[in-house]
């Protein structure tokens, strides 16, 4: 009995003690675990008395529960959202997250980036319009969709890095004719095809046009001539067998494993894969930004998931201070260290050839203002529509026009 009493008292006192310090509660998508663990250790060391409690959830679980967790009476102080009406829009409409304008001014976040670069985090205060207004989220990490390639294969095929989309198409044809799998694609998961579509779309459609459609899909035309041309290109690529015959039966992770094991000439995916490719392929992997039809660059991509501060947080200033640590110049190099691509220019040299090429590709996209986000951001139902319709195009059971029609219908839905 005495022991139990002691135990209860000590537990009570311990919890009291930890409440006495300032605690910052964070809920993050698992992709940022290394980043947050690193940043939390630094922040706790620099701010005695502050304790950071970070929890991580895998993508599916995170996205399925984040809105409910933020609506809870005791939500995390700082949490990821997701660009678009489905998550960010709902959080803002319901008043669950606060505007970061005050902190952006205090910490000069906006000056770190080009004008308009943060538009994916900007919302009207009622959460009804997206792409302009107040800053509701921020992220220190860039995620771009680029082209990774197997250097040995490209060389042995007598090809060089393409500088126009037509050259890329030619490289696919040469690869196919030589019996290679031109593009490795994990189409069973659906969403990796969005990345492929983003690059092909970007090769023909003005990025400004695509972004404005994503921000306001019901009022901006989807089925423009250039986009129809891009859809036809994608269908042609599928019909020519450039994705192989089994891509819809291969998951994303398996596709990347195939690529690392030397299958496939090109892999059209996001910069979050850089560290894995680097460790798996060493110097045999390169990267470039997809060239457009007229020699510019095209890319899906955006900032990584936005950080939001809960409107119920008891200490939003502390949350913002931690956020500023993530956004700071000092942390940029640490981001590189954990394998992420910082949105700001790093001060240290890239640690590998691949990282140098990835950063060059990323810079080219930023320079051309060519990031076009992700198609599925446009409407809450768009993820389903675009993945299903793209699978049909890749599988050859739907035409480019079917895809365009279904997408246009979902846009105004």
């Amino acid at each position: 009995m005495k022991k139990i009493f002691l135990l209860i008292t000590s537990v009570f006192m311990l919890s009291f003690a930890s409440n006495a310090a300032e605690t910052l509660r964070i809920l993050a998508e698992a992709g940022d675990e290394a980043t947050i663990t690193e940043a939390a250790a630094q922040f706790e060391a620099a701010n005695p008395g502050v304790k950071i409690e970070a929890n991580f959830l895998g993508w599916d679980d995170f996205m399925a529960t984040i809105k409910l967790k933020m609506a809870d009476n005791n939500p995390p102080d700082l949490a990821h959202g997701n660009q678009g009406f489905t998550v960010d829009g709902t959080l803002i409409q319901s008043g669950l997250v606060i505007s970061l304008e005050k902190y952006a001014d205090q910490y000069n976040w906006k000056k770190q980036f080009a004008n308009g670069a943060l538009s994916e985090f900007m919302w009207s205060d009622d959460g009804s319009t997206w792409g302009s207004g107040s800053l509701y989220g921020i992220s220190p990490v860039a995620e771009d969709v680029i082209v990774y390639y197997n250097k040995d294969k490209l060389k042995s095929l007598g090809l060089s890095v393409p500088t126009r989309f037509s050259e890329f198409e030619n490289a696919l044809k040469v690869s196919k004719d030589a019996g290679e799998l031109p593009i490795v694609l994990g189409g069973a998961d659906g969403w990796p095809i969005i990345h492929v579509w983003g690059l092909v779309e970007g090769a023909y459609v003005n990025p400004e046009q695509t972004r404005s459609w994503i921000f306001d899909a019901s009022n901006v035309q989807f089925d423009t001539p250039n986009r129809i041309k891009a859809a036809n290109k994608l269908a042609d690529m599928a019909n020519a067998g450039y994705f192989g015959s089994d891509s819809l039966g291969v998951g994303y992770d398996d596709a990347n494993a195939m690529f690392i094991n030397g299958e496939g000439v090109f892999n059209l995916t996001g910069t979050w894969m850089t560290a894995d490719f680097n460790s798996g392929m060493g110097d045999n992997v390169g990267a470039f930004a997809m060239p457009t039809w007229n020699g510019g660059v095209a890319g899906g991509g955006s900032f990584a998931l936005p950080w939001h501060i809960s409107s119920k947080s008891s200490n939003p200033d502390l949350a913002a201070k931690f956020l500023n640590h993530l956004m700071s110049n000092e942390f940029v190099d640490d981001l590189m260290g954990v394998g992420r691509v910082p949105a700001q220019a790093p001060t240290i040299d890239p640690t590998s050839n691949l990282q140098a090429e990835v950063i060059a590709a990323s810079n080219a996209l930023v320079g051309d203002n060519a990031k076009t986000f992700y198609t599925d951001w446009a409407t809450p139902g768009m993820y389903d529509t675009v993945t299903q319709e793209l699978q049909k195009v890749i599988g050859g059971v739907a035409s480019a026009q079917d895809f365009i029609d279904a997408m246009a219908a979902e846009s105004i839905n």
Partner: protein
Amino acid sequence: MTTKNIYRPQTKIDYSSYLYILPAFIFYILFVLFPLGDTLVTSFTEWNGISEKKWVGLENYSKNLSNKKIISSIKHSFILIIFYSFLPIIIGLLIAGIMIRVKIHGMATYRAILFLPQILSMIVVGISWRWIYAPKGPLNSGLDFFGLENVSRAWLGSFDFALPFVGLIGTWVMFGFTMILFIAGVQKIPSELYDAAKVDGAGAIAEFLNVTLPNLRGEIIVALIFTVTLALRNFDLIYITTGGGPGTSTMIPSMFIYKKAFQMNQVGSASSLGIMLTLLIFTLVSLILIILREKK
């Protein structure tokens, strides 16, 4: 049959007996009836999960009925009934029928092995079969070994084959259950009936059709209700293996419910689809009971 009711008919209801079921009943109200009622109310509203619910009447239902993708997903469910229900029942009956005629040494071991899929988690089953069906998985390797390279393909990535091949996983999972059910049923059939059949000169098939099958009516009804319900409300197997794809070729209503509630912010619409699915299952189960009821 001349079984007598050994219990005397009760004329007075002893209300104190309800106290015994009270704890379970409270749980039933809390975790079944209340959520069901809440879902029903939500199904008449537009709700994103955290905002105020907005009453929209029957709009969610009419939208569901005019949604071609939802209608086709219900068709997929009916195709899955063939694989989740009819095939396992036929296989289970065959095994039970054979068991009567042939005494196999170590049958208990075989029975346990055949029942194994039933006790595995659907997640484990789904991941294992995804590997078996993979482009370079064992199934295709086997086909290639026999020179059938033209047949091998990415089964779950095929618009033509994904649905039946997911269905076959269901067959594999369910036939252990039907088999155990029917074997138990066969054992309670009086052996005199089989002796009589033998005297009348019935062969294996006649014996199966005239003795085994009619006496398994109760077990067949149970198996049908259980497997048809599973085919219609199945979620995990599809979610793990295909996610409804490629395209919408393996999409089923429960996937829509999940996507609407957790991806598209349409909790009201998801609820209405849930209610519709419940009604559909209820109707089918009632039909099975009515059609197969023992005629008096």
